[in-house]
Structures are given as C-alpha cells and as structure tokens.
C-alpha cells in the first residue's frame, strides 16, 4: 500500500473531522516563522524551532501533563500519569547522561545548587501548578491549543518570572550548597543506577497507593496502541499512548542538548519576554542586578529569534495548535470563560509558577526533567519540594472552586 493510500484509509475512518482553518493557520505560522528564523539566524535554530513544534504536538496528543498526573495520584489514587513521568525521566537520563559525559565539547547539563531559593521556589511552583492548572510545558501547550484560562495563567506566569528575576540575587545570597552532579562522585554507570533506584522506589510507592485504593493497577503508561484506531489516525489526531509521547519527548530533549548545547528549558524565555515588554514601556531593566549578568543581559539585548528557549517555545505553541486542529479540539476547553475564584486561581497560580520557576532554577522541564536527565541532585530536591507544594495546591483548589 502506498503512503497516500494509507493516508486516505486513515482519513476516511468515520468520526474524524479536522479543523482545516486551525491546521492551515498553524502550518502557515510554522512556515512563516521558520522562514524568518532561517533567513535571520542560523539553520540550527530552525531545527530547534521544529523540535519545539514536535514537542508541542507530543505534549498535546499525549495529554502529557505533569500537573494532572500528580493530582490523579493524590485525589483519584491512580498512578499511570506519574509512572509515565518516571519512565520518561529514566529513558531520558539513559540517553542524556552518557551524552553529557562523552567528552564532546559544547554541551552543558542542567545542574544547579541545592539552595534556599531552590527549596522555596520549587515549593511555590508546586502550589502554582495546581492553582494555575499547568506547569511550564502544560501552560504553553494548552495556550497553543486555545485554552483561554491558561492564557491568563501564562500572562501572570510571565509577570511572576520578572518579579522573581528582580528578587533572585537576594535569594541566591541565602544559605545553600554547591551543585551536586551525581556523575562526579558515582561515575556515569553509578549515577544512572542511583537514579533508576530512586525512580523505582517512587514507582513502588505510587503502585502501593493505587493498589491500596483500587486493588489493582492501571498500566496505561505501557500501552503502545490506541484501541479502535489506526496508528496513522492516532498519530495525526491523537490521543497518543503515553509510550509514544515518552519516546518523542525523550528524543526531543536529547536532540535539544545535541543541537543547542544545553537541555530543554521553557521558563527563561518568559523572563526575557516580560523584561522586553517592560523595556518597551520605558523601564530600564539594567538597573536590576539579574539583568546585568552576562547571559540574561545578552538575551535581553538581542532578538528573541536568536534565543533558543524562545524559538522552541514559539514552535511548541504552533505545534500544539496544529495538534488541536488535527484533533478538531481547538479552544475546546474555553467554552466557559474564567471568572470569579477560578480566574483568581489562574492569576495567583501564574504568579506562583513564574516566581517559583525563577527561584527554583526552572520549571518541571528545565529543573526537574532536564535536571534528572543531567543527573543533578538539585532536580530530586526540586521534585520533592514541588510535590509538597502541589499537595497544598490541591487542597487550595477547593476554595478556588476548581474541580479535583
């Protein structure tokens, strides 16, 4: 069967409508912005832009949300989402830890100090995840899919990162320890084994909770086919089994490291966008210490098209939009406009996410996922503190009239 015949067969399956306007708009956006990046920067930036788009599709079609996975474990006592995340961390560290220590120059891992700012920031981020309704990646891909409430969260996420950047030099002066890359003391095999042991221990704890509540385990994270749908239709319109999303997201992060020189991150771009917006209305950001540091100052001074995280975020937004169009579900989650306490939750959640991400060396992607993939101890501290914050956030959701 030819490729076109396979495509026809997939498209002709009953009950599948594509939102042609959204799909064509997203494709036009990808072509336009991709062309601009190609003309004005360098080919490797186009590659990173496209990786961002594929990651956006994978996150949307895989419904790969860190926030819901944690909440499902706590509230519904179901652990598939959490186990999928653990599997993702394991697979990615298996690829990226040896890459980072292969001796190839030009690659830097996500390694950070164990500090007061890390503990406070990740805890605040965890609360924000549950109030805002998403994490760094979750906020971005749901906005791309047209979710209005998450657009409110994103705006305040950006504001929160900028406030955080103004305060962060003070937080960094508080007590803390130097970064602890596990490879330095354990070597590559030892670091991988230690991480797998920790991931296995958490998986055992997750299984125990699920089995105690339900008497069985739903191994949804191990499914590799969506029942009743052809693989092609599943690939284009979702929903992807977790295994597909895990594979694509793991490879995407490894390619980001290989091409861009550092692992995947999201929230520093929000920082830059917010600071640029303030500069546009006349605020001199260089009066703040953080924006005098070499890397932030360089990112602020130059075009967002030269900034890897920004370019990948643009790709992610458009990729999620494309996926939502292919699934005919663009804007589906915005039938009811946010108002009252749910609106306030989006505002407060966004601010906590942004402030927490700045203090905690990133979000669930930059600090947690890429941190574990770099075998850095700070990622494990981030994980524990953000989960603790998330527990508080889940309780607060009731007051904000958000469904659990």
């Amino acid at each position, binding site marked *: 069967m030819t490729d076109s015949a396979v495509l026809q067969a997939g498209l002709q399956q009953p009950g599948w409508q594509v939102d042609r306007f959204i799909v064509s708009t997203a494709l036009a956006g990808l072509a336009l912005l991709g062309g601009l990046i190609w003309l004005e920067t360098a080919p490797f930036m186009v590659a990173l832009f496209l990786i961002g788009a594929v990651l956006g599709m994978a996150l949307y079609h895989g419904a790969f949300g860190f926030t819901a996975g944690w909440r499902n474990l706590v509230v519904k006592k179901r652990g598939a989402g959490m186990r999928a995340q653990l599997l993702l961390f394991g697979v990615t560290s298996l690829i990226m830890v040896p890459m980072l220590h292969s001796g190839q120059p*030009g690659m830097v891992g996500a390694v950070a100090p164990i500090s007061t700012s890390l503990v406070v920031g990740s805890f605040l981020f965890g609360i924000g995840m549950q109030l805002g309704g998403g994490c760094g990646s979750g906020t971005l891909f749901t906005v791309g899919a047209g979710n209005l409430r998450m657009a409110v969260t994103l705006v305040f996420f950006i504001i929160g990162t900028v406030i955080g950047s103004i305060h962060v030099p003070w937080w960094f002066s508080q007590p803390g320890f130097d970064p602890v890359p596990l490879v330095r003391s354990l070597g590559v095999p030892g670091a991988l084994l230690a991480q797998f042991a920790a991931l296995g221990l958490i998986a055992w704890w997750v299984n125990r909770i699920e089995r105690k509540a339900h008497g069985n385990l739903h191994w949804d994270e191990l499914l590799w086919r969506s029942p009743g749908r052809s693989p092609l239709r599943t690939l284009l319109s979702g929903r992807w089994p977790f295994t597909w999303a895990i594979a694509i997201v793991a490879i995407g992060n490894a390619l980001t490291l290989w091409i861009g020189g*550092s692992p995947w991150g999201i929230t520093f771009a929000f920082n830059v966008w917010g600071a*640029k917006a303030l500069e546009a209305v006349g605020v001199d950001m260089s009066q703040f210490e953080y924006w005098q540091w070499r890397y932030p100052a360089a990112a602020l001074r*130059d075009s967002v098209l*030269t*900034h*890897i995280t920004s370019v990948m975020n643009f790709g992610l937004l458009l990729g999620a939009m494309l996926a939502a169009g292919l699934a005919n579900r663009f804007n589906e989650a*915005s039938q009811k406009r946010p108002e009252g306490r749910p609106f306030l939750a989006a505002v407060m959640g966004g601010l906590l996410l942004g402030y927490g991400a700045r203090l905690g060396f990133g979000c669930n992607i930059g600090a947690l996922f890429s941190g574990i993939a770099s075998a850095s101890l700070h990622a494990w501290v981030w994980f524990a503190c953000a989960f603790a914050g998330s527990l508080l956030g889940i309780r607060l959701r009731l007051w904000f009239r958000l469904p659990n």
Partner: protein
Amino acid sequence: MERPYSRVRVLVMLAIILVLIMADHLSSPTFAFNSGQGNVETALSQQAPLAGRPVPQHETDH
C-alpha cells in the same frame, strides 16, 4: 456545528504576536549585523566561545 472560537480573533492574536516578534527583531543587534553593520556583538556570534564552558547555573536557560 458552531465553531467554538472566532477566526478573526485567532488571526488577530497571531498577527499581534508576529508584529511583536518583528518589532523586537528589527531593533536587535542581529538585524543590524544582517543589514551589513559591522562591529555589532550578536547573541549568536557569542555562542561559539560560550559553548564548552560551564555557564553559571543561575544565568542559564531554564
């Protein structure tokens, strides 16, 4: 079936984002460099010497 969004609103939002990106880019050192101005330090030209050395974590890209 009624569409759950306004096409015009989607296009306007995307156009605003594109205009903001273009406005930022047109006033950037990279655009000046691409337009033939020498002596401009761009983020991309700085990346090569930066690569391969550990960037202080508090400044890095997360």
